């Protein structure tokens, strides 16, 4: 038996070594391959810090490039600073120095579309592929002529996590959240945590409360309208919800310093918080990092609204788009999206696919949590595809920081934010 294992190891060794050589820190494929595609990607998959994820993607990329021996992919990593990275990518592409293929954050896709730098990948995606996409995804990745300008390969959403030993029933409304959080505080826990620091996650997570009331950030032309008419009242209601949580002690004041989702995982591991507003991807992270019995007490539910019928959740995710006008490179870019990421890449990481057939195809989506995620996606709202969105988000972060730290009153802070956004909009 031992001989058989040794023989099998020796036979597999060259293949393993070859796979390792095919994927390096800056390249996929053989260094002397005649054709080169440059690909700017995030650090969450092929170069993930999680060994299992990295290994899965190394296998997918190795198989992909073996089938195309004439090509090598030169990889370029993006940092986690999405705004800066995407702005730099756009600027480089416009100057003719961008990569051939890149991952573009879904919130920035409209900006890239408007500037005309995206090249069609119609040769790769059939009409059926496009028809299978969720409607909001289909609308985002195609133009008026039906060209496929990007492939949104995974989506995500925000949900409410709760420790069921402290909060057995999922709160359905803002009022119930506050009551449950205050009860948890009495038991020595932090009631509820959410992003409140100066970063995109703060505004995006909070926006669900605005959208749940039907609020709109921009009008059809992309002009900011969040502080006008009915939107103003809805905006202030959503601010008051967070402000009330902090001032009542249901949420700790430290939330104005939280600028990443890892803080919630840490709180769950330490058993210090009863609830938190997090991303769906954290469910898998908690499963992988918490002891089994600890993980068992955590459950997810849809984000509460002002009433049980008013719900929304922000949907994000990443797209892959071709930036090269070389049709061969554009096609290869599309094939990377289709063969590596959309489907096998989703399943490897448990990331939410953007079409129903992929959910049906992989066992990875059999868990009950995915039923909830898919259900919650029905109330999903994507960030507006307007160039002014990043500044709206910036001003919401400032507003929330000021209000929650007690430095400003909501009305005055909203006026200041609206004025700053309008000024920026007029200069765009």
């Amino acid at each position, binding site marked *: 038996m031992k001989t058989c294992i040794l023989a099998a190891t020796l036979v597999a060794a060259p293949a393993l070594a070859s796979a390792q050589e095919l994927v390096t820190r800056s390249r996929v494929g053989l260094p002397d391959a005649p054709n080169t595609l440059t690909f700017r990607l995030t650090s969450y998959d092929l170069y993930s810090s999680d060994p299992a994820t990295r290994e899965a993607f190394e296998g997918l990329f190795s198989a992909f490039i073996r089938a195309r021996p004439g090509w090598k992919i030169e990889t370029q990593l993006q940092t986690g*600073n999405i*705004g*800066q990275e995407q*702005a730099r990518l*756009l*600027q480089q592409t*416009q100057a003719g120095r961008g990569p051939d293929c890149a991952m573009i954050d879904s919130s920035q896709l409209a*900006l890239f579309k*408007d*500037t005309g730098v995206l090249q069609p990948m119609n040769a790769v995606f059939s009409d059926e592929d496009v028809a299978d996409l969720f409607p909001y995804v289909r609308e985002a990745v195609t133009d008026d002529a039906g060209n496929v300008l990007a492939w949104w390969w995974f989506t995500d959403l925000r949900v409410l996590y709760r420790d069921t030993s402290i909060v057995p029933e999922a709160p359905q409304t803002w009022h119930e959240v506050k009551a449950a959080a205050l009860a948890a505080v009495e038991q020595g826990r*932090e009631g509820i945590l959410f992003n*409140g*620091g*100066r*970063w995109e996650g703060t505004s995006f997570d909070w926006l669900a409360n605005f959208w749940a009331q039907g609020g709109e950030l921009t009008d059809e032309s992309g002009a900011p309208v969040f502080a006008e008419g009915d939107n103003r009242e809805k905006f202030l209601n959503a601010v008051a919800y967070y402000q009330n949580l902090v001032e009542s002690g249901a949420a*700790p*004041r*430290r*939330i*104005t*310093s939280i*600028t990443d989702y890892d*803080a919630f995982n*840490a*709180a769950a591991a*330490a058993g*210090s918080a009863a609830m938190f507003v997090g991303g769906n991807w954290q469910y898998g992270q908690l499963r992988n990092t918490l002891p089994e019995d600890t993980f068992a007490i955590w459950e997810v539910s849809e984000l509460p609204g002002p009433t049980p019928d008013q719900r929304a959740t922000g949907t994000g995710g990443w797209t892959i788009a071709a930036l090269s006008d070389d049709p061969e490179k554009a096609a290869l870019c599309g094939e990377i999206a289709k063969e590596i990421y959309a489907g096998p890449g989703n399943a490897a990481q448990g990331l939410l696919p953007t079409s129903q057939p992929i959910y049906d195809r992989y066992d990875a989506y059999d868990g009950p949590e995915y039923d909830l995620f898919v259900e919650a996606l029905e109330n999903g709202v994507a960030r507006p595809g307007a*160039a002014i969105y*990043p*500044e709206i*988000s*910036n001003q919401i*972060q*400032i*507003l929330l*920081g*000021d209000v*929650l*730290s007690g*430095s*400003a009153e909501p009305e005055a802070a909203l006026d*200041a934010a609206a*004025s*700053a956004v309008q*000024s*920026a909009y007029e*200069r*765009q």
Partner: protein
Amino acid sequence: MTPTAERAPGQGYPAPWLIPAVAVLATFYAVPVLDVTRLAFSDATLIQPASGFSTVALRSILTDPALPQVLGTTLVFVAVNVAVLQLAGLAIALLIVRGERRELPGMAAFRTLVLAAWVVPGIANGLIWGMLFDEAPYGTLNSLLAYAGLGPVAWLSDPQMALVSAVIANVWQGTAFSMIVFYAARRGIDPVLYEVAELDAAGPWRTFRSITLPLMRRAIAVNSVLVSVQTLNTFDSILALTGGGPGRATEVLSLFTFNTVFYNLDLAGGSVLAVLLFAIGMGLTILIGWLGRDRT
């Protein structure tokens, strides 16, 4: 035969010798500054190139209600940092020199330890201090304070305290630079002067006031300029530590410039702020140079 002083190569005709230095400075400093100035008087964004001359960005930025708050935060951040960096750097440099004079073991290791903070990148510095200042029940500094029966301190969530935390992080990293400058200057002072002071029975404070401080005045002036400009341009550690928040509590001018370009995509507005940053830096340099001039 009367000895004649040897003439330096450039003496009398310095221009040819200065051309390479001027060319390098012009290429790598003046051209970018001129280009940024050009952009400041345009309507350029990250999406659209400049279409012509415009003062809209200039007027818009200078009348931005957020600018006074940002300038105020910058002033406090720079002033406190410069003062603390100078004092801490000087104190450590003198401590090391004194230790070396007494041949205390471990002074080289101590010097290296102080320098280690200096080589940490700004972003990493922000992340390190972010972990230390974490206000969660299991946060490092607050847990240590709790052992002493103190705290918890709202290191990053309280607007005033967040600025103090940003200063602490910057001082931790920047002290080494001041220390190097002062250490070199202190080592350059003729030891005979200290021996004479000792013979005259001068105490440590009198020696410091009458020998060390006057002879290090030029180093202090140079260090003030360098540290002021460095601190004025600091944004990476703040970006990682607080992102400028809560609200705008720790948003200094350089971070405001960054946000204007990368959130607003407003290249012209960002250029106006960059020119403002440059002007303030230049003004500080001239002012400190003038204050520290040799009056003899």
